[in-house]
């Protein structure tokens, strides 16, 4: 075979340039524009004004402190679950894993809203249980600790997933050898498992840290009432008080977030460098430890944690949606479906938001899939420097906080597009393009892994028989990668559906997304309506996740995030 076929020419000539152009538009153009505005602000001294504001430094401080604390909390919870669910014989692993990943899929502002309803003197739930704090007690979550706690809950699944992926490939024979030599469980854990799982823990910490710095929903609901601003909420408020300097200011602020994220990722890189984690031997460390008597300690512990992470906030949210007016205790007599009626049948924004979010998410998932299949094909067939650069350019917008991308796209499209004279700012298209950019990497990952598993011989055979590129695509490649493509679509759909950070800056009349609708309802004081809409969104997420669960049997390993 070798001397006859060069791997490079099995793809049409337009394919790779097409991928490169898409990446240029989605990644390079917005970030270059952001950099330009930032440099211009440097040149005219605007940066000095921004950097000279005292509020900037307190904001940066709060951003870093909440992100670090949040990362620590997510590490503690995430590691506990990853070790217990991957390495021990705890019961109902599948169910626990599904529940534990759920918070990641729920919009952060819904999480924040639910926790607010759960605590403080306003809690309808606590009032119904007659354990609400007295008049004038502050809401404990409106604090740095509260923001960090919810960051921890929201991002613990990220740590869990990162660590779990590493634990899955842990060599079983190392553990067995140690056992045979008489090592205790604790010793095995400390000397073998912990050192080998460090890369997973570090990677999880880095993802969690970057997600915390870019989170908007949680500090918007918990921080703004207490005047605790993080960089994303400061950018948002700068937009709310629009002046001629706003564009320059937010460009500088976004650059600071980008720098913090990059520093976080560099620390990860540094921590991993100089260590060699190659392992040999049989992987698949399922149930390396028997819990034995400890089962009675750990089983209740994980369920109690899940109760406080999921069930209690959800019921608080439900209670918040069912009270007839603020401050009325919830009983069977006072319970009212008014908020659900109002949100389902009267508020036009509900319908607009559902239509917008579902069609944006659907269009993002499906259009990206078309690009992803082509890109994955081109990138897995070509293994040169250019394709590696293209791959990392696809990753950048996803690893940067959404608010940075939103600002970049505003800068690109604030003025009408030259030649065409069309203005995208204020339309739904700018949100769609920003989604394309931010979720490209999410869409690409499962498809690339499917391509790696694909035997190129099949396609080569078709090519030798004279099948053209599209024929091969339709008859061989697409059927083989279909399950992974399905997973990619559902993952992107789930994430895009619940997105707030990007649309919070880009929405306009008629282009509200679900995230924006919930945030605006709560912001206007209608937290009963916000709670009702949130309950509906949570139910939708659970249904989508169940769909993916049903599909899971037909998917390559590792595509559905919460399954082993």
């Amino acid at each position, binding site marked *: 075979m070798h001397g006859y076929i060069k791997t490079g020419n099995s793809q049409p000539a337009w394919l790779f340039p097409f991928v490169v152009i898409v990446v240029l538009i989605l990644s390079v153009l917005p970030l270059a524009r952001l950099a330009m505005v930032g440099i211009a602000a440097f040149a005219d001294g605007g940066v000095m004004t921004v950097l000279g504001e005292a509020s900037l430094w307190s904001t940066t401080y709060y951003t870093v402190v909440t992100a670090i604390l949040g990362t620590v909390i997510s590490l503690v919870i995430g590691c506990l679950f990853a070790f217990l669910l991957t390495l021990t014989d705890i019961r109902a692993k599948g169910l626990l894993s599904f529940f534990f990943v759920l918070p990641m899929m729920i919009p952060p502002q819904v999480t924040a809203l639910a926790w607010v309803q759960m605590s403080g003197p306003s809690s309808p739930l606590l009032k119904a249980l007659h354990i609400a704090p007295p008049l004038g007690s502050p809401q404990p979550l409106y604090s740095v600790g509260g923001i960090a706690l919810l960051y921890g809950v929201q991002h613990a699944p990220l740590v869990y997933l990162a660590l779990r992926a590493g634990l899955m490939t842990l060599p079983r024979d190392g553990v067995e050898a140690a056992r045979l030599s008489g090592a205790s469980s604790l010793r095995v854990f400390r000397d073998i498992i912990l050192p080998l799982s460090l890369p997973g823990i570090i990677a999880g910490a880095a993802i969690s840290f970057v997600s915390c710095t870019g989170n908007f929903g949680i500090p918007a609901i918990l921080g703004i009432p207490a005047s605790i601003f993080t960089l994303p909420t400061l950018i948002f408020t700068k937009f709310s008080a629009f002046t001629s300097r706003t564009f320059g200011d937010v460009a500088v602020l976004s650059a600071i977030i980008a720098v913090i994220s990059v520093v976080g990722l560099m620390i990860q890189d540094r921590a991993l460098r100089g260590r060699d984690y190659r392992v040999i031997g049989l992987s698949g460390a399922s149930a390396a430890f028997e819990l034995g008597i400890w089962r009675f300690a750990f089983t209740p512990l994980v369920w109690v944690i899940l109760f406080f992470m999921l069930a209690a906030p959800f019921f608080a949210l439900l209670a918040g949606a069912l009270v007839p007016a603020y401050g009325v205790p919830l009983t069977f007599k006072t319970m009212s479906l008014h908020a659900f009626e109002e949100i389902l049948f009267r508020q036009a924004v509900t319908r607009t938001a559902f239509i917008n979010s579902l069609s944006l998410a659907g269009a993002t998932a499906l259009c990206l899939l078309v690009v992803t299949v082509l890109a994955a094909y081109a990138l897995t067939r070509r293994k040169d420097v250019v394709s590696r650069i293209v791959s990392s350019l696809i990753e950048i917008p996803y690893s940067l906080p959404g608010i940075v991308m939103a600002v970049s796209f505003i800068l690109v499209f604030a003025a009408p597009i030259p030649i065409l004279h069309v203005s995208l700012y204020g339309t739904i298209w700018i949100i769609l393009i920003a989604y394309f950019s931010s979720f490209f990497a999410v869409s690409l990952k499962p498809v690339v892994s499917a391509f790696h598993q694909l035997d190129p011989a099949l396609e080569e055979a078709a090519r030798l028989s004279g099948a053209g590129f599209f024929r091969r695509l339709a008859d061989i490649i697409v059927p083989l990668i279909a399950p992974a493509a399905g997973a990619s679509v559902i993952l992107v759909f789930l994430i895009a559906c619940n997105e707030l950070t990007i649309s919070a800056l880009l929405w*306009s009349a008629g282009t509200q997304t679900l995230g924006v609708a919930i945030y605006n309802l709560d912001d206007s*004081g209608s937290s009963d309506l916000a709670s009702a809409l949130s309950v509906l969104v949570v139910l939708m997420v659970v249904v989508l996740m169940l769909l993916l669960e049903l599909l899971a049997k037909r998917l390559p390993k590792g595509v559905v995030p919460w399954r082993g």
Partner: protein
Amino acid sequence: MKTIVSAAALVAASLLAIPASAANLVLYTSQPNEDAQATVDGFMTANPDIKVDWVRDGTPKIMAKLQAEIQAGNPVADVLLIADVVTLERLKEDGKLLAYKSPEAAQYDAALYDTDGYYYSTKLITTGIMYNTSAAMKPASWKDLTKPEAKGLVTMPSPLASGAALIHAQTLAAVPGLGWDFYNSLAENGAIAAGGNGAVLKSVASGEKAYGMVVDYLPIREKAKGAPVEFVFPSEGVSAVTEPVGILASTKNADAAKKFVDYVLSEKGQEGFLKLGYIPARNGMKLPEGFPARDTIKVLPIKAADALKNTDQDLKTFSGIYGSN
């Protein structure tokens, strides 16, 4: 593959359909969501051929949104229905408003609308004090909020988030015996200013705070629904805004916009406001339940020209006392 393609086509079609089915009229308003929807529904029942899309936010925020859109060359709104005439007066001076002489104006006190027809007041919204019924002190005057009993228990809307709150601060600041000193002593007493009127209502009704400065209709309406709150008109008097309506000069739907202005000023539109618990601006209308007789409500005066001129300075003074949120 076929199903994916057809699904993609469906989604693309539905996306294309969004701008196509977009409203003929876009309203930017500071009314709470439920009230905005009710107003729009009332208008659309009266004018079934016009579809209205609306966006709700606090007056300063929605004005910022509008300014950003104007800068980007793509203002979306056709009609504004926002808290105060001062804001609309500024837009009028900038040439951003369209003059329209509504025939309904004859039923209104001449002081309630712009003589050139750039904007019309639609209702009277006063700002007084609300308190949680389990609070120890029943406030009767603004100064009661600076008493030790209210220490750390007072909240108010921020003028950076609410148009009514800005007018309120500017009004009280000009009252002899109150002034900015009053705001200073409130701050010393642990009062906070954050969010809009909705946030104040939530905070007091839920018991996070005991006392709040707030617009009248919110607590009066919530009390009727069973919330543990009371509203008082303080002895010194209350400030008032009139929630004017105005048409943007950049509108592409001037006819529909004019119909909207006529509707909110008409008897039917005003009755809609009455039903929601607002004091209608039109002559000869009743008061909503829970309000004292209109002539017993003492409205403190405000000099609109001064308010307009001093807005930036007043915002700075306020932020200096309460921090910038």
